[in-house]
């Protein structure tokens, strides 16, 4: 008994369960609790069956003795009351445990549970009583034993029904509970079960002393019955179904009440269960709550569509805002917008236009409207010059233009999906009634479009940043490759000095230079610029370096190198890519150099004998532009004898095409002028002077437009190996 009692202490089961959920260490306790629950359930069932059977036996015994002695009293009233209490407690305890399994917001299933498992008991009891009456009438015998039996069975069914309904109502009553409600309910439960003590001690509850208490409990019940939050969550259809179920449950309440009050103080019976105050109070609660739920459901029926709409708007709104996390596409967002707004406005026709690029309009959704009609409406809007702006017309018939279109609709709203910078699309909704778009609806629609804009913009941002991330990573690799391809130190020799400058742009890349010592007195220097950027440019650079080192092992003249390089590159360059390059072979024993230019910038030269600076104007087509043998006619070779202190400036277009704020290019002329001013300096100083001038020209900038590469070669006056 003590073990069972424990279950009626408020909080006990819930508290211990919650603590187990919080700490996984107590898992074994949780398992034990499960076992405990199952054990408790079977214990309750056993106790209920035994107590009910004993009660039946006792009642039948008493009835038998009544028939014989006609003394209207039970043999052992206290034992009887004790059995009643045990039976009630067992059944209620069992139902309390099983009701806790009911979860979720499918309230209809709760009601269905009460009806099927509880309400049917009432109809069974009616049927049983009918059978009894028929049997009695037919056989025309008075059988008190049979009556007692029926009465006893009905008592069992009543307790079952009450327990089931009581605890399911508890679940619903505590839906969206707060702390106060939980406490209020717990005390109510304690109070009700306390009344069982009266039965146990055989007090007469109807005596005057308990009357105020009864009134209080009645008010308490009324107060609790106002907690019907779950009803608001029922849709119109569900309310209809729940009304039927509630009516059936009410009928069950009535049947039981009627049955037991028919037998109040019946002389034929030895026992009267209306004496059990607890049952009356439980019936009061179940009946009141059912009636309250019935009435509330009934009267909220007309307004339920409003709540349905609101909660659906809210749900759609939530879906829209969550679509980013769920990685949905823009199309899905527009789908959602269209669906939600059509529902929210209850529009009879609608279409959605999405802008692709600046001009392209795509009609991506259409609802009960012909393309022809759309065309006509848009034409008219264009004539009124009200395209792509917020526009509401709640009485289209009043407008002659719309009247002429003979449309079946009377209201129109245009909602552009537009951020400050960008027009994403336009939503058109039509309704077949005048004043179809009231302020409330328009507000909801605007909220939807605003949320859509936010979602689309965020989607694009996410996409962009992902792209950027990948692009950055690619650039990092490209610049690493590029960096590794450029020689870190040039050979320093006594007969010439060389100064180099290389600065990679963030976006466009592809400059490179390299050298190869061909023999003791000859060196090959190559400079080049690969079109394109990122990884592909870096790869082409690497290819070019390979070609340079591979071909120049065979020591060939520059023009021959260009022809072979072109033929090699033709097979692997993409169609839109090409490489400009210039190759110089300097022979200090011959005091001259040979070079060929393949579309690369002209070489700037200072001739110290003539004291003149000039560009070598030679023809030469870039590599990869013509991809067959005819390229051979497009490359020229030149030989030039140099003088000591001559200066050669080799560079890429990043230098001469560097721009200032006014968008002017640095240009070949300024570069040449710089050399006329600095040719007497050492190579390193000439380079620095040019780069300083270039930086003066462009101004401080972090983001170069193109790679800048500059090589300054100065032939030294003394050449000791002679």
């Amino acid at each position: 008994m003590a073990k069972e009692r424990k279950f009626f202490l408020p909080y006990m089961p819930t508290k211990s369960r919650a603590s187990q959920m919080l700490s996984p260490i107590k898992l074994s306790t949780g398992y034990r609790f499960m076992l405990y629950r199952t054990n408790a359930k079977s214990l309750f069932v056993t106790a209920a069956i035994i107590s009910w059977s004993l009660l039946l036996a006792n009642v039948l015994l008493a009835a038998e003795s009544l028939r014989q002695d006609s003394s209207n009293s039970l043999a052992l009233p206290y034992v009887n009351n004790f059995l009643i209490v045990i039976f009630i407690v067992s059944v209620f305890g069992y139902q309390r445990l099983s009701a806790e399994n009911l979860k979720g917001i499918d309230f209809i299933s709760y009601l269905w549970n009460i009806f099927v498992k509880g309400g049917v008991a009432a109809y069974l009891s009616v049927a049983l009583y009918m059978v009894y009456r028929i049997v009695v009438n037919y056989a025309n015998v008075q059988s008190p034993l049979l009556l007692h039996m029926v009465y006893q069975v009905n008592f069992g069914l009543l307790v079952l029904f009450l327990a089931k309904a009581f605890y399911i109502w508890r679940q619903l009553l505590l839906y969206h509970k707060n702390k106060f409600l939980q406490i209020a309910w717990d005390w109510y439960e304690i109070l009700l079960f306390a009344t069982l003590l009266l039965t146990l001690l055989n007090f007469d509850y109807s005596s005057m002393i308990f009357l105020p208490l009864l009134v209080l409990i009645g008010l308490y019940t009324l107060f609790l019955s106002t907690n019907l939050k779950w009803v608001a969550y029922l849709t119109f259809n569900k309310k209809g179904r729940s009304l039927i179920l509630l009516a059936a449950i009410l009928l069950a309440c009535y049947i039981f009440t009627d049955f037991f009050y028919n037998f109040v103080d019946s002389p034929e019976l030895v026992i009267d269960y209306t004496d059990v105050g607890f049952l009356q109070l439980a019936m009061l609660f179940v009946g009141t709550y059912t009636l309250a739920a019935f009435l509330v459901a009934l009267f909220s029926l007309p307004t339920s569509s409003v709540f349905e709409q609101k909660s659906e708007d809210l749900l759609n709104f939530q879906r829209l805002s969550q679509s980013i996390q769920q990685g949905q596409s823009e199309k899905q967002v527009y789908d959602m917008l269209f669906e939600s707004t059509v529902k929210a406005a209850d529009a009879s026709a609608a279409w959605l236009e999405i802008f692709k690029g600046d001009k392209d309009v795509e009609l991506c959704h259409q609802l009960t409207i012909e393309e022809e009609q759309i065309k006509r409406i848009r034409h008219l809007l264009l004539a009124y010059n009200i395209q792509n702006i917020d526009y509401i017309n709640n009485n289209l018939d009043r407008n002659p233009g719309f009247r002429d279109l003979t449309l079946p609709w009377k209201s129109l709203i245009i909602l552009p999906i537009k951020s400050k910078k960008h027009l994403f699309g336009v939503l058109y909704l039509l309704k077949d009634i005048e004043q179809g778009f009231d302020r409330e609806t328009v507000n909801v629609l605007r909220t939807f479009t605003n949320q859509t804009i936010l979602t689309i913009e965020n989607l694009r941002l996410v996409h962009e940043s992902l792209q950027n991330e990948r692009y950055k990573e690619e650039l990092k690799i490209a610049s690493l490759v590029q960096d590794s391809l450029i020689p870190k130190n040039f050979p320093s020799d006594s007969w010439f000095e060389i100064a180099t400058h290389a600065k990679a742009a963030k976006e466009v890349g592809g400059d490179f230079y390299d050298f190869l010592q061909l023999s003791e007195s000859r060196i090959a220097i190559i400079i080049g610029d690969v079109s394109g950027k990122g990884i592909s440019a870096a790869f082409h650079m690497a290819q070019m370096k390979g070609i340079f080192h591979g071909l120049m092992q065979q020591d060939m003249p520059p023009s021959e190198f260009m022809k072979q390089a072109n033929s090699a590159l033709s097979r692997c360059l993409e169609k839109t890519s090409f490489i400009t390059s210039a190759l110089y072979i300097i022979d200090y024993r011959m005091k001259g150099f040979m070079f060929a230019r393949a579309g690369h910038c002209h070489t700037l030269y200072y001739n110290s004998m003539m004291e003149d600076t000039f560009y070598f104007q030679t023809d030469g087509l870039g590599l990869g532009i013509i991809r067959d043998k005819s390229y051979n006619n497009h490359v020229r070779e030149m030989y030039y004898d140099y003088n000591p202190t001559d200066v050669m400036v080799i560079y890429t277009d990043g230098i001469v095409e560097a721009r200032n704020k006014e968008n002017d290019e640095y240009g070949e002329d300024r570069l040449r002028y710089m050399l006329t001013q600095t040719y007497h300096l050492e190579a390193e100083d000439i380079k620095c002077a040019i780069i300083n001038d270039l930086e003066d020209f462009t101004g401080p900038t972090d983001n170069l437009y193109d790679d800048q590469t500059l090589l300054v070669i100065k032939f030294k006056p003394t050449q000791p190996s002679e």
Partner: protein
Amino acid sequence: MPMKITNQIKDTTIIITLDGELDASSSVMLDEALSDPEIMTYSKILVDCENLNYISSAGLGVFISHLQRFEDAQIKLIFYNMQDKVRNVFEILGLDLLMTIVSDYEEAMTIADE
């Protein structure tokens, strides 16, 4: 500054006007315009470069990649009204020997009609 590409059609000649800077991003537009199968139905393509302020290697790459195709189809590709600095870029790369670059529209039309 975004690139503007406009087409104008005169009989069997299509005149493509380039306005702005032909850089890596705008060259995609140019590539689309030149890849249009319809362009192969004309006998001459005139490119008006009067307002072409800059051409990047990507822009050049687009012309280069279509060059062979037009040549094979015997479609003449003629540039005219080219600014000096843009012409210089063509010349350095050696493209002036591969492509027809003339001073003005009249000259372009007479060459085209040959």
